[in-house]
């Protein structure tokens, strides 16, 4: 059998096995969309609302912070048990001035300044600095660019209070600035797809979903038991999710608590952000792999997903591209008998159909359907580069003995 056939077969299986798994998750997501709608109608109203603190870590967030504070201060959670902590991590722009102005308008807003010399060490460190100043039994975390819908915090709290086995609840995150560029349109589609399939679908089947870093609520005592936010990790949310799973507790994702956020409109910022996330995923995968082998559920499911993505799917996609290029250039062709051209077409159709399916769960704008077709040959291919960049950066840091580098996503002015 020629080497190109073996190569092709690996690529073929590496793409189709994850594809089949994700398609099955789509079906679970569809079931969850119906269950979640029923849940929302029957959410119990607590007799007593616990004190709730919203933590917003902020470093040079002048461009976005005003809208964020407006949206979070105007939540319909009972105001006598509600506070918002803006944790200013030594911002050098006008973040502090804006926050003070907003605090004068909304009494629920408090400003916590991270002491000099302790700031600039990333989001987890900032959150750990703010936590002792919070009075809430419930802690909600928002990024500084988040604008949740008015009922979002209340719905998160109601869901958490309704189910004793839950430690945390994550709401849905949507892209607010999706009109800003073609890239933000692609990100908006990806977020919808990712959340429904990987959060909703997995919750439906395995009662498993992970924190997404923003728009989530967690019991304070659980947070303190876990030792706060992991300052070494580039993905504090994923890292914390894993620690919660170790304690055999659950995190739920709900589609009805919606928070909007700004996503990077430029490619360079996007690549830096995703490279950081990917490095973070590499870190948690290697850290928890030995545990996952001993305890396959639920951590194993999460680790399996990462491995399937980074070890199977991405290399398979590259092999597939190489095989295609060799074939198109006439250097070598596969000799395997089978309907492979038809399967390539089917694979593309399935990719688009899965995107459209999740968009249909969201009442998304028609133009997003069009962009999801384009994303196959554009946006999706960028991820190959991102995975390589992340692997290269991580390897370089390892060789040079550097620790993982925190990178803060730059904000931009949005098109209104």
């Amino acid at each position, binding site marked *: 059998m020629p080497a190109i056939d073996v190569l092709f077969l690996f690529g073929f299986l590496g793409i189709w096995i994850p594809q089949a798994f994700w398609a099955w998750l789509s079906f679970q997501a569809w079931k969850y969309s119906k269950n979640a709608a029923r849940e929302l109608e029957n959410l119990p109203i607590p007799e007593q609302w616990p004190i709730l603190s919203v933590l917003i870590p902020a470093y040079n967030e002048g461009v976005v912070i005003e809208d964020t504070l407006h949206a979070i201060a105007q939540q319909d959670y009972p105001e006598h048990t509600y506070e918002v902590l803006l944790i200013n991590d030594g911002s050098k722009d006008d973040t502090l001035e804006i926050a003070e102005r907003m605090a004068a308008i909304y009494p629920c807003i408090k400003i916590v300044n991270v002491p000099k010399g302790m700031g600039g060490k990333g989001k987890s460190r900032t959150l750990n600095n703010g936590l002792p100043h919070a009075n809430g039994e419930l802690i909600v975390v928002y990024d500084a660019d988040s604008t949740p819908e008015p009922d979002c915090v209340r719905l998160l709290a109601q869901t958490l209070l309704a189910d004793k086995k839950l430690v945390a609840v994550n709401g849905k995150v949507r892209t607010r600035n999706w009109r800003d560029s073609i890239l933000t349109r692609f990100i908006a589609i990806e977020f919808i797809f990712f959340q429904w399939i990987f959060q909703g679908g997995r919750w439906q089947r395995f009662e498993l979903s992970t924190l997404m870093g923003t728009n989530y609520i967690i019991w304070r005592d659980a947070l303190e038991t876990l030792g706060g936010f992991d300052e070494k990790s580039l993905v504090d949310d994923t890292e914390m999710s894993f620690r919660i799973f170790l304690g055999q507790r659950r995190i739920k994702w709900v589609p009805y608590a919606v928070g909007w956020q700004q996503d990077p409109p430029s490619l360079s910022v996007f690549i830096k952000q995703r490279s950081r996330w990917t490095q973070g995923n590499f870190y948690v995968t290697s850290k928890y792999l030995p545990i996952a082998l001993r305890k396959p559920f639920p951590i194993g499911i999460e680790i399996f997903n990462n491995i399937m993505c980074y070890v199977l799917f991405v290399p398979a996609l590259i092999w597939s591209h190489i095989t295609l290029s060799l074939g198109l250039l006439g250097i070598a062709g596969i000799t395997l008998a089978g309907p492979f051209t038809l399967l390539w077409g089917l694979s593309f159709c399935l990719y688009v159909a*899965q995107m459209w399916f999740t968009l249909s769960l969201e009442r998304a704008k028609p133009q997003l359907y069009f962009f999801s077709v384009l994303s196959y040959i554009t946006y999706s291919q960028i991820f190959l580069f991102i995975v390589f960049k992340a692997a290269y950066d991580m390897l370089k840091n390892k060789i040079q003995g550097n620790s993982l580098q925190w990178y803060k996503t730059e904000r931009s002015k949005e098109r209104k």
Partner: protein
Amino acid sequence: MSVIINICGVLIATSNFPDPTLRSFYQDYYHCKIEYTKEESSYEVQPTQTIYDLFPKNPTWWPIFTSDQLDSESYKNIVRHGINPGVILPNDYFSFIEYFKIKKAVNEGAIPIALYQMKTPKYFAAKATFSTAIGLRPLGAMIETGWDQNIISQPAGNYFIQSKNSNDLNVPARIIQYKQQFFYNTTIDPTQSSGYQIILNPPLNMSVNNIQYPNLGISWKIHNTNYRSTTEGIETNLLGYVFIVLSIVVIPLDYIFSAHYPSLLSTFGSSISWISLLFGGILLLILIISIIRRRRINARN
């Protein structure tokens, strides 16, 4: 051409003189020697079906149905009486309708029986593995081509033997044990009056008071991996379970295992591509229907 044999003084015309194993069964269970007789004998020659009546024993039986008979009144009557009949799995392929019909019957207690072809035992192994994967684990093997002395070299389990034509001498109407194998006389003739027989597609009017179940269970071997299917479940090793899962996506499994590298990979690649096309097509259809439904619901709201 037929030969005349003498069984305890009764002359029977059969197509072949029975092999030593079959003769030993008649010796052990009917206590009769089978002897060759010259055709010029003046005694009347009897048909083979009459033999079983010559050796009286309380008549007991167990029903087996072909899949096309699962809607019959006879089958329904058997199930209504709380009896678990056998159901023969189709030999070549399952249509979806046929699969769901058999699956429903199995869920209600019917016992899957796989066809065994002496010429292609590997096919049986592949079929049994695949049937296990799709929830129709066989507990017996049906041989439609009559007794063959090579059966005794097959894996342990129970074998239902049906004569190919009326002139063939079948195994005695008893539960016949040979080492770890059990053989059963299987017939479509419901007029039995003596001994134990498996009745294929029995008519509605048969008495259900004398049902006796066979010793259910069958073994097979794939690529040096042993399987033992019992009423409790399947017994195999880790590789065996891998083959069960693999059998869903690799067609045909028996062909794969008779192939050698490099054609092994080619066959695997080729068959999995067709399976992927089928599954992918179904999946795409489901997604398209879901999208249309969701868009309609959204438009209404």
